[in-house]
């Protein structure tokens, strides 16, 4: 196998942290190479250097034997390197072809472009109508727009950053077929993920990063997922454990809930019913954008619903706002940390009073007791291992994972009767994620009901008693999580979103 891209001694220093330290490895032509590592291990910095978004402080790259030092993404694309980002850069109000054209150096005429989009999408099994408005597409379809934008430039190396986090299992299968077809045509793929089973299924080489350094190389086909995980975190992993406790009375009961969000691109909840018992963990899966935010907002009380739709311990709480619900023990932690769960420019102490005021009695006659609030913030920081200089730090100065620990800790330490969390471990490293999951399980063991909305199916299978899936605003009937197969879960999540594989 000939070498396509060779990295030697790449180093990138940021203020206070060495993001990449002497990173060397190479990717063969037609190889699917995995880049593994926890959040903050330096994966993003590394691919940004390959894609010309960052410049290395030291070290060099070679593409097909010639020196390669792209100054910008245009230069990288001209050399045959393309990238699909984890977060899409698409304009919702424009159609597919227009979005593709915006990302191209010299876009052809619209009808010609639409024609080539159809050809490429047929050839690679990624059906996509060039005339559809992006705002109406599912996350999986949006990703196809990004992929096709790359494929139109006939790349030699395709970089994919966490591509499956927004896909159903069936969609993942089809993406893999596409990637394998690309591979068979000689295109190399650099595949970034922390989903180890996927990497074992797809990749034929892997480089593992930890704290900016290469800590190992392996062949994922023959290495176990557990071994790879331990190489990533550099320690033995503690898998959350739980006693299969008895569940008690119904705490939260939602019947036939309909809800239309104010945001025109939001998802309408249709006839959602669920019930949650004491001691139960209900996992709600589904691809992002299928009503997760809306479900959390109607449960937290931020959005008002029709009368009688939500009852809590037998009492109709549809008309209660967030603080009234906190008072009776129904707490929530939204997905968006900065700007929803926490105010970016405010200190951790101030963010502690944001939801903690009622249950922790942080104010008297509406005058905030800042001393008590700071003690509460310190308590969260200590018990949930939040890495920060102290409670006076602004929320935005924390890394995503640390802020996530703070947000979850803030709710868990308020001793909720029912806790609803959305994406509780998003962006959190493996050992911290395990700690967060354990704290949710401990809550349930103490008799609380927990609803975990997540796109991480492994996480849901690990901690849920019952599993349900959100698909286009509809919630499936919950099923016992134990023993559910990936196929069954995939069908609950809406299958492949009308996606059909092309015949080979």
């Amino acid at each position, binding site marked *: 196998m000939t070498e396509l891209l060779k990295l030697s001694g790449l180093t990138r220093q940021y203020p206070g942290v060495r993001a990449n330290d002497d990173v060397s490895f190479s990717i063969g032509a037609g190889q699917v190479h995995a880049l593994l590592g926890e959040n903050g291990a330096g994966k993003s910095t590394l691919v940004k250097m390959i894609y010309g978004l960052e410049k290395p402080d030291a070290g060099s790259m070679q593409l097909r034997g010639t020196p390669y030092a792209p100054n910008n993404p245009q230069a990288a694309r001209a050399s045959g390197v393309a990238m699909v980002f984890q977060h899409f850069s698409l304009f919702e109000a424009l159609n597919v072809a227009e979005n593709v054209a915006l990302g191209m150096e010299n876009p052809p005429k619209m009808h010609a472009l639409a024609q080539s989009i159809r050809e490429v999408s047929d050839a690679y099994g990624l059906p996509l109508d060039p005339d559809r408005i992006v705002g109406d597409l599912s996350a999986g379809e949006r990703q196809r727009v990004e992929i096709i934008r790359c494929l139109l430039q006939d790349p030699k190396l395709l970089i994919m950053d966490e591509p499956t986090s927004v896909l159903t299992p069936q969609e993942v299968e089809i993406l893999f077929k596409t990637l394998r077809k690309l591979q068979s045509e000689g295109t190399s793929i650099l595949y970034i993920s922390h989903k180890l089973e996927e990497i074992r299924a797809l990749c034929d080489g892997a480089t593992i990063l930890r704290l900016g350094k290469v800590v190992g190389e392996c062949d994922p086909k023959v290495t176990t997922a557990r071994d790879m995980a331990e190489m990533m975190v550099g320690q033995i992993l503690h898998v959350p454990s739980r006693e299969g406790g008895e569940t008690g009375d119904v705490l939260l009961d939602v019947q036939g809930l309909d809800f239309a969000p104010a945001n025109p691109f939001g998802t309408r909840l249709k006839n959602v019913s669920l019930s949650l018992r004491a001691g139960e963990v209900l996992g709600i899966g589904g691809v992002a954008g299928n009503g997760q935010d809306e479900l959390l907002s109607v449960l937290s009380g*931020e959005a008002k619903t029709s009368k009688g739709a939500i009852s809590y311990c037998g009492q109709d709480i549809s008309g209660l*706002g*967030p603080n009234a619900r906190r008072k009776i023990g129904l707490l929530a932690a939204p997905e968006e940390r900065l700007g929803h769960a926490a*105010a970016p420019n405010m200190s951790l102490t101030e963010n502690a*009073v*944001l939801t903690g005021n009622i249950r922790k009695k942080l104010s008297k006659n509406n005058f905030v007791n800042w001393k008590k609030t700071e003690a509460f913030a310190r308590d969260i920081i200590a018990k949930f291992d939040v890495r920060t200089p102290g409670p006076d730090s602004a929320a935005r100065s924390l890394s995503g994972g640390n802020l996530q620990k703070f947000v979850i800790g803030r709710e868990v330490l308020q001793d909720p009767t029912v806790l609803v969390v959305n994406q509780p471990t998003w962006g959190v490293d493996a050992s911290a994620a395990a700690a967060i999951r354990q704290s949710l399980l401990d809550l349930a063991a103490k008799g609380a009901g927990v609803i975990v909305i997540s796109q991480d199916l492994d996480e849901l299978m690990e901690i849920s008693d019952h599993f349900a899936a959100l698909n286009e605003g509809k919630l499936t009937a919950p099923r016992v999580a134990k023993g559910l197969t990936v196929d069954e879960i995939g069908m609950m999540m809406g299958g492949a979103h009308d996606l059909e594989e092309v015949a080979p």
Partner: protein
Amino acid sequence: MIKFVKRPEPSKAWTIATPILAVILTMILGGVLFALMGKDPFAAIRTIFWDPLFNDQFAAYSRPQLLVKAAPLILIAIGLSLGFKAGIWNIGAEGQYIMGALAGAAVGLAFYPTDAWWIFPLMVIAGGIGGFLWAMIPAILKTRFNTNEILVSLMLVYIAEQLLASAALSWLRNPEGNGFPGSRNLSQIPAMSNPELIAGTGTHWGVVAAFAAVVAAYVLINKHMLGFQIRLTGESPRAARFAGVKDKLLVLFCLGTAGVLSGLAGLFEVTGPAGQISIDFGAGYGFTAIIVAFLGRLHPVGILLAGLLLALTFIGGELAQFMLGLPSASIQVFQGMLLMTLLGMDIFVNYRLMVVKKEAL
């Protein structure tokens, strides 16, 4: 190449330093302006900033004027700052100021010539209510129909000015005034006057109210849950909703408080320094207070200092007009510069300058 790099946290030192640097920069830029106009820049700056307080000849007259001019600015700016912190943009304080004065004066004059101790307090209450009701118009339109409070409150200023003119010309005109426009002189009616409380200082009830407002706002913002909710709403509205803030109530509160304080400022002005309702009663305090609020970084103590500073430039500006023949427009330009430099310097609170090696292309 010089680049702005975002700070992980807003810099405390720069938060304090930027207003001071902005004042210094304004002095320099203003000096250049005055020099271009053919005036001695040092004399001009000294006349504006130093002479009103320390010149042997004028200080006895101009020093008390400092508090007289600063009080309405501070009172109004404190009210505005609450809304600005929450992202509610009340630009119509001038109208609320006028309506407070009109309502208070009308209530007082309705009892003329009764002489009783309760008339002045009643006028104060009426003044507050006048400003409050005028501010409720944009507030209710915003909460009910989602109108833009900037436009509505601003437009209401012009309506208030027309009402003021009609009051001065007809329904509040002094019947013994020989047909001249303007109401009876309230400051000369003992039951309705707002006198200087301590001779030679300019302290009247409005000054007392302004200081009380500074203290109350400080406590509200820093200690009270409502103040926290105001800051949170301005920081991130979605987090505020999650924290259970009732955003519509907050709009009513912030606009209402600004209305009350502006109305009070108007009432104290019309019963004291201005003395009567006249066509030109609205002197622009309501607009200048916007500058004061931002110059004071929306912080109560900052607003206190900024109000005093702006009042100083008013008095000093008048003095410079009189002494050096500077046109009044150039004083306004000077005050505008102050706001512009402050907003320009603001970037250093959240960003720092970094020299980056120019990348070879």
